[in-house]
């Protein structure tokens, strides 16, 4: 099991690097889908079966399709080389390393991080659904309102003005 963690962690990091470094938006989107699938496998390893499949169905199968669709629609081929933002070029990399070090120190100095053998956890669709429709029913209803607003907003924004 541990070897699977390392393989898919490597896949996720390499794909993540490509999301950032690829020059063409379509390639970035495709690499992002690879990240999503690798993370879904990590979820499976963590026993979160339902969330792993939701990740693929909703994230990779619906949200990313929207991205690819918009890239195709706008025919976004190459990124134009930038002329501004000297700041990002010179200070960006050191700041990234600093952030990485900071998070690393925070994680390693926290005693709970060395957890190795957690008690078993039932995370099938049934237990997730039970929790969702009892304890978390209010946030669930609120998100439905959020989605309705989002649909309306998207229609209003993307409509051609006559």
């Amino acid at each position: 099991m541990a070897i699977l963690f390392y393989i898919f962690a490597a896949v996720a990091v390499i794909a993540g690097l490509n999301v950032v470094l690829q020059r063409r938006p379509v390639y970035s989107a495709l690499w992002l889908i690879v990240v999503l699938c690798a993370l879904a496998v990590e979820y499976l390893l963590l026993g979160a079966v339902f969330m792993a499949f939701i990740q693929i169905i909703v994230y990779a199968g619906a949200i990313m399709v929207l991205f690819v669709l918009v890239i195709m629609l706008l025919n976004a081929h190459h990124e134009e080389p930038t002329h501004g933002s000297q700041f990002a070029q010179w200070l960006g990399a050191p700041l990234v390393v600093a952030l990485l070090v900071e998070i690393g120190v925070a994680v390693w100095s926290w005693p709970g991080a060395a957890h190795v053998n957690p008690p078993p956890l039932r995370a099938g669709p049934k237990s997730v659904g039970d929790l969702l429709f009892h304890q978390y029913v209010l946030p669930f209803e609120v998100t439905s309102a959020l989605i309705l607003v989002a649909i309306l907003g998207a229609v209003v924004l993307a409509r051609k003005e006559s």
Partner: protein
Amino acid sequence: MAQFAEAHFFLIESVVKIIVVLFVLLTAVAYVVWLERKVVARIQSRWGPYWVGPHGLLQPLADGLKFLFKEDIVVQDADKVIYWMAPFLAFTLAFLSIAVIPFGGSFQLFGHTIQLQITDLNVGLLYVFAVTSLGVYSIALAGWSANSKYPLFGGLRSSAQMISYELSLGLGVVGVLMISGTLSLRGVVTPQVGFWHIAGIPFLPRWNVFRQPLGFLVYFIAAIAETNRIPFDLPEGETELVGGFHTEYSSFKFAMFFIAEYANMVTVSCLATLLFFGGWLGPLFGPYWLRVILPVIWFCLKVFCFLFFYIWMRGTLPRFRYDQLMAFGWKVLLPLGFLNVLGTSFVIAWLHS
């Protein structure tokens, strides 16, 4: 030692099952193509393929050879990597979902229980939906990467169509899931065993289609749209888009799209059989080996009926216009799916109280 032998047996069992299922599926795909040409020909008062083998039975083989030996043309301005990747993606995804489809009960061999299914996942249905939801990419990317206008239109149309109808596809199934309370494709068949009785006489098999007629209708219409078949074959509508998303593909890469489409048809028909028509259930009789074989035959017969229906529709119905397709999906099919879920939940709550 016993554990070691157990692991070996599991490995051999899995490999044998995978090989057999893949072989059967590929043959089935080849002969569905033959069947389609024959049936559509008879609907149009023609004879269809007749020259290669008796009744044209070797035609799929000839077609396959032809695909292999045709020149493989790559469009000059195509995005090469994605152009190559798209057909392989379509092919792989089409064959992945067969892994969780059960096609019979189980039987004993050398003291082991062998299930007639590659693997029984307890979230099998979610797995199938996950795989089909990724299938959009192969078509969208094939359309985009060829860098040509008709494929691009086909790809754009298909992404919009497949996202829209995926919702109805899921909603159509929810009613069945509420009744059976499981996501396992084997578990979903178990509650369908037996008959409804009228005055003590077995009257109707307890198939889900009789409890969920609306759910079945929504599922099946959405499934036809998902597999891009007539009357929803807008992504490849040949009279308006030349060939749709695969206009610029030739030779073996085209064959991969072609096989993927028919493999998807088979998967969707298997799913409809399992969820709504009692899967492999049917009359059982005779000695032990016949009781093992018969369920597989019932299952294949039911799937065949669906495939025939697909072909029949192709010979009968005209194509939708694009705005009609979208309006139908969002304004008719989706509300019907919601209505079905709502109605089912009320009935279940009423029965439990």
